[in-house]
């Protein structure tokens, strides 16, 4: 803060966080005449939290709509959610989110978001998910421009460390900016500061020491400070505090912010071994988009949280390219040496696997083909072809954390709840409350739907409170 302007002003709505949910709330409130300030923890180049890594928005629609094909109705959407969460959802909030996704799509377009047809390699999503032209960072940029045009003030590198409450009432936030603590007063606050997945110590306390070996796919700024502060003050929580959503990504990815390009789609066409060169799960259980999410957990359970997906040259072109080239060798022995795996054991594992493979005539890379092994302790039930054609290639796998489930409990108006009811003027949106709806698993593009729908609700309700 170079001036005392931000500090002396009594803002109508203080928005904590600077990602999709925060921006939707800020824009909605500003359009209703509220004076809004966004406190974004990151510098401008890293603004937008995990939204900058996203690529689409899961959207209900009753018929063909813009880039979305056919129809995707409430019931099917809700059933998809039930499947991934195994029932761990709040039906009222979930259905509200689903129903509001359709008008939200039009709202997004009206506020600068451009959509494009499904990306190549993602055709299975063309009915359910609307892709952002340029991805989530382009969406975030569009919203920041819209917010600026509405007169919303944005303070970057502003890390909120405390939400000052008096009874059930929010009074001000304490924010660290430029090495100093400041007080920003407001008549309402919207908490949209994400989960705690960037706080490795917290992850390690919740999950166990193995979490220190996890990679974080998104922003390093989601430290969960505001979430913890609110819970410490008696806000109600939702979601499993020990769990995070993790997928298997390239083990060479950066510790933070590796994003989409570290994804590996080679698993169904490979054998996956741990560092003892032993297989540990059916690589061909289902098509990859459906199995992708469980592999983070599977690899996390292996020694040192590492796995190795091994293919031969037959499989090389069957999956999307990823950011790092594979380790390549002409023999399995050499491959094992390069990976630091026990060579004899790897050769033995692959030999046993190869011997258990049946005829591969029906091999079909994009559908369950039933080309399977017979007689192994851990079978591979689809796409099982011998690993026998040099050169051999390997990708190291590690768990990559996408988000955490622990969050604040909110009402249908997105108001934060405590033991005796609701806070008067505190709302939450985005990952910080997503655990209410997404108690387990993940549904592609649903995080952006939760952020958009509840960001808009929170902004609307906060402005209504201020204008009353």
């Amino acid at each position: 803060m170079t001036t005392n302007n931000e500090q002396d002003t009594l803002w109508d709505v203080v928005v904590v966080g600077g990602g999709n949910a925060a921006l939707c709330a800020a824009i909605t409130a500003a359009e209703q005449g509220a004076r809004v300030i966004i406190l974004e923890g990151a510098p401008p180049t890293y603004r937008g939290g995990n939204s900058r890594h996203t690529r689409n928005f899961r959207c209900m629609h009753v018929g063909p709509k813009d880039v979305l094909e056919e129809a995707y109705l409430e019931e099917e959407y809700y059933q998809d959610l039930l499947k991934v969460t195994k029932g761990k959802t709040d039906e009222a909030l979930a259905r509200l989110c689903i129903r509001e996704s359709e008008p939200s799509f039009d709202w997004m377009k009206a506020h600068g978001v451009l959509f494009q047809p499904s990306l190549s390699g993602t055709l299975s999503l063309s009915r359910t998910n609307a892709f952002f032209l340029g991805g989530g960072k382009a969406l975030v940029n569009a919203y920041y421009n819209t917010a600026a045009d509405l007169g919303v003030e944005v303070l970057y590198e502003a890390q909120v460390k405390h939400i000052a409450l008096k009874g059930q009432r929010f009074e001000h936030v304490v924010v660290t900016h430029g090495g100093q603590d400041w007080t920003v007063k407001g008549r309402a606050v919207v908490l949209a500061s994400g989960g705690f997945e960037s706080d490795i110590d917290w992850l390690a306390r919740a999950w166990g020491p193995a979490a220190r070996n996890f990679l974080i796919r998104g922003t390093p700024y989601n430290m969960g400070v505001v979430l913890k502060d609110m819970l410490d003050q008696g806000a109600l929580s939702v979601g499993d505090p020990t769990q995070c959503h993790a997928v298997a990504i390239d083990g060479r990815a950066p510790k933070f912010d590796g994003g989409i390009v570290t994804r590996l789609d080679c698993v169904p066409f490979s054998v996956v071994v741990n560092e003892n060169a032993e297989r540990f799960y059916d690589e061909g259980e289902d098509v990859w988009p459906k199995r992708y999410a469980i592999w983070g957990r599977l690899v996390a359970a292996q020694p040192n949280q590492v796995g190795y997906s091994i293919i031969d040259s037959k499989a090389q072109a069957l999956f999307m390219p990823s950011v790092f080239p594979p380790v390549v060798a002409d023999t399995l022995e050499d491959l094992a040496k390069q990976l630091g795996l026990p060579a004899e054991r790897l050769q033995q594992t692959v030999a046993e696997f190869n011997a258990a493979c049946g005829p591969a005539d029906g091999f079909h890379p994009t559908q369950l083909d039933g080309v399977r092994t017979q007689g192994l302790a851990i079978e591979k039930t689809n796409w099982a072809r011998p690993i026998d054609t040099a050169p051999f290639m390997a990708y190291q796998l590690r768990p990559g954390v996408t988000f955490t489930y622990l969050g604040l409990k909110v009402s249908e108006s997105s108001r934060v709840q405590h033991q005796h009811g609701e806070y008067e003027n505190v709302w939450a949106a985005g990952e910080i409350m997503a655990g209410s709806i997404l108690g387990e698993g993940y549904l592609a593009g649903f995080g952006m739907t939760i952020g958009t729908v509840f960001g808009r609700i929170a902004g609307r309700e906060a402005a209504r409170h201020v204008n009353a």
Partner: protein
Amino acid sequence: MSTLELNGLLRASAEEARRQIEICNACRYCEGFCSVFPAVTRQRTFSLSDMTQLANLCHNCQGCYHACQYTAPHEFNLNLPAALAGVRTESWERWMWPRGVAAWVQRKPAASAGVLIVALFVLGALASGDAASGVFYQHFSHNLLVAVFAPLFLLPLLAIAMALRNYWKEVGGVCATVAEWRMALSQAGRMRNLSGGQDQGCQYEKGDRYSQARRHAHHAVMYGFLLCFASTSVATLMHYVWQLPAPYAWWSLPKLLGVPGGVLLTVGGVMLMRLKSRSDPALNSATRWGGDWAFLLTLTLTAASGLLLYAVSGTSAVRITLVFHLACVATLFVLTPYSKMVHGFFRLAALLREAQAQAGRGRS
């Protein structure tokens, strides 16, 4: 595509561009912006010749930079518009005869200024007759102009034709079909690759906000230039075929083509300079920045002085205006193979090659 022996400098910049493109191919968020990304998704590996083609296909709209989650300070350090701009300008320099001239002209604006000054002196010395005459051919005879400008026009075209031939070979092009030509010309004519994919435009002069200003300015320059070119061609035909020498009345075809052409070119040139002054050199070929400015200025001055010449005809200012205009024209022509002017030829070739690749044709 064919792998060629590339010189060291180009190899370094093409390898850097390839590193970036491989990251793009794992992400694909930018698919809808332009032709570059769909072309990328057709391949898994990229030769350095592929990078030459992708670089010339890129129109530097900069949308992908602003949308990118991997720009600095991220360790992947992506800046695709700049990486491709480097490969692109070096590819023109590499193929243009005589070698080294383009690298010099593109880097040093003084080179263009020097050519202009020489042209001013030579033309000033060649001018004859009554210096105060308001009539064009009193200063330079038609034959003299043809003797000077025909080689200045034809030799650069020859150099460009030879360079394009080499380019076409490098990127694995084969004889183009009518449909491929139609597609390439339609994309060039609409500047689809400056449209941002949805007619929202580039992110060029206003940071991460979209704007159609650059596309429109570029349209004005291109169509203005083509109208001026058509005007000169018609006048040449009228002179030789119908024995109708200049000056021409305002309602004659050369004037009806040339005046709007000159206005479009001048206005477009001024707009492009305004936009360029607000854009970020770090997203473009920063080492060619000076050369780009010299080219834009020469182009705009050529058009503006042409209009001025029409305005002062019949007065004693014709001599000085004419010398200046002709010097600009000479500079523009001579430097065409070695300045940014040449991008139009390579861009069209790249669009044609892309049309071919989409049809599954060409050598790989």
